[in-house]
């Protein structure tokens, strides 16, 4: 009899434990679903204390979230690229006769000094402005393949800080730090961030690097370096944040509106990322986050 009771208790305990475990798993599923519903694909649930099969599942789900986020960003970029390519082509074709004919008329003796000169000049200036505006977006429609190679980050940052002597660059990036990128593109991206900071009235730029700890992705040959680039210039108002990386959008009077979208696209092409950081660095009003791959050695 007591044996039966013991067995019964063991069975009940086992069932209760199993039910509890299922509830814990359901909680995890709920957390992930909440994150996805909020379009946050960067969730990363801990895998400590999980049995091996479930740890593998959780790691895969964490990885999946990351992949979805990259894909969503890439799709957005691709759509804009296609749109700008078509528009660029049409607008440039159309402005050609407008700017040429108005330019010819401006040098015509009947127009020069006549009451028509101002009008014709306005047509000419406007058509030139339009084609210049569009030619900035030519860069968005050209698919340039990045040439990836080792890039010494510390030296590049040093170089950039010398281009803007009026800004103090505070960095914890060790010398040397080698990442895997297209040197030209990476330089353009960093210069763009620094230039924006200078235009926003910044005096100090803070750059911090942390290596991303990926517990599960131990088989990956490349890891990513998190580079936080912050400045103490004017903060970005909340209503501007959603359109920060959208081409054509600029809040600057003489802005082209392509600096940030182009920079993000260049980072994506190198297998990295460019985003607004969730939390600004200490002492900074605006902080960007760059993910740059580096080879594990």
């Amino acid at each position, binding site marked *: 009899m007591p044996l039966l009771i013991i067995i019964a208790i063991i069975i009940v305990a086992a069932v209760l434990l199993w039910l509890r475990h299922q509830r814990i798993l359901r909680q995890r599923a709920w957390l992930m679903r909440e994150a996805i519903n909020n379009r946050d694909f960067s969730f990363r649930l801990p895998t400590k204390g999980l049995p091996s099969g479930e740890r593998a599942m959780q790691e895969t789900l964490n990885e999946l979230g990351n992949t979805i986020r990259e894909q969503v960003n890439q799709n957005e970029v691709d759509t804009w690229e296609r749109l700008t390519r078509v528009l660029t*082509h049409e607008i*440039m*074709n159309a*402005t*050609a*006769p407008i700017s*040429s*004919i108005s330019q*010819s008329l401006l040098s015509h003796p009947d127009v020069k000094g006549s009451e028509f000169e101002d009008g014709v000049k306005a047509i000419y200036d406007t058509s030139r402005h339009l084609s210049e505006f569009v030619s900035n977006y030519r860069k968005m429609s050209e698919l340039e393949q990045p040439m990836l190679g080792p890039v010494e980050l510390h030296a590049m940052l040093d170089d950039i800080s010398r281009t803007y002597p009026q800004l103090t660059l505070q960095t914890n990036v060790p010398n040397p730090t080698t990442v895997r990128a297209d040197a030209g593109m990476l330089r353009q991206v960093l210069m763009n961030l620094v230039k924006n900071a200078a235009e926003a009235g910044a005096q100090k730029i803070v750059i911090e690097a942390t290596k991303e700890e990926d517990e599960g992705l131990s088989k990956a040959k490349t890891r990513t370096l998190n580079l936080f680039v912050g400045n103490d210039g004017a903060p970005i108002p909340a209503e501007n944040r959603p359109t920060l990386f959208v081409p054509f959008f600029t809040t600057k009077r003489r802005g082209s509106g392509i600096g940030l979208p182009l920079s993000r696209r260049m980072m994506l092409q190198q297998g990295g990322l460019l985003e607004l950081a969730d939390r600004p660095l200490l002492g900074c009003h605006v902080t960007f986050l760059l993910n740059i791959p580096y080879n594990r050695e």
Partner: protein
Amino acid sequence: MQKEKYGTILVIDDNEAILTALRYCLSNTFQRVLTMTSPDSVLTVLNQEVVNLVLLDMNFSLGVNTGQDGLFWLRAIRKHHPELPIVLITAYADVSLAVRGLKSGASDFITKPWDNDELVRKLKDVLDAQNDLATLDEVEAEHIQRAIDRCHGNMKLAAEQLGITRQTLYNKMKKL
């Protein structure tokens, strides 16, 4: 003092507005500006008229001509009139097509939209270069340099290839 005008230019573009723009722009530089909206009968026209320069649009709308693209017509004109310089008009982002055109014998290219003064300058340069004949000395010097480069600085080999003695080569080098 204004230089006398250049001869006849033939402009081929399916866009009437572009033809008008170019007629305005080039009438001060050329005696005659002939225009065509389609390259289909260009060879006939070239046989009937004396043309000094062809301005050919590479950006045809589909279906307007027989489906043959700009490169086809470029090569056709080059084949029948190898001495006739051709300048291409390409769409803004179409630099690769322009490069292919240059390799197929075009003299230069412009992209839409263009600056009138820059276009006129390019066309004048193309026509002027045609009239200049290099002197024998210039041709020789260029050829010698090319041979030396090809032989990676090996003077003995270069002299051999040029069919002269090494001493003669050194003498000619001294003159350069």
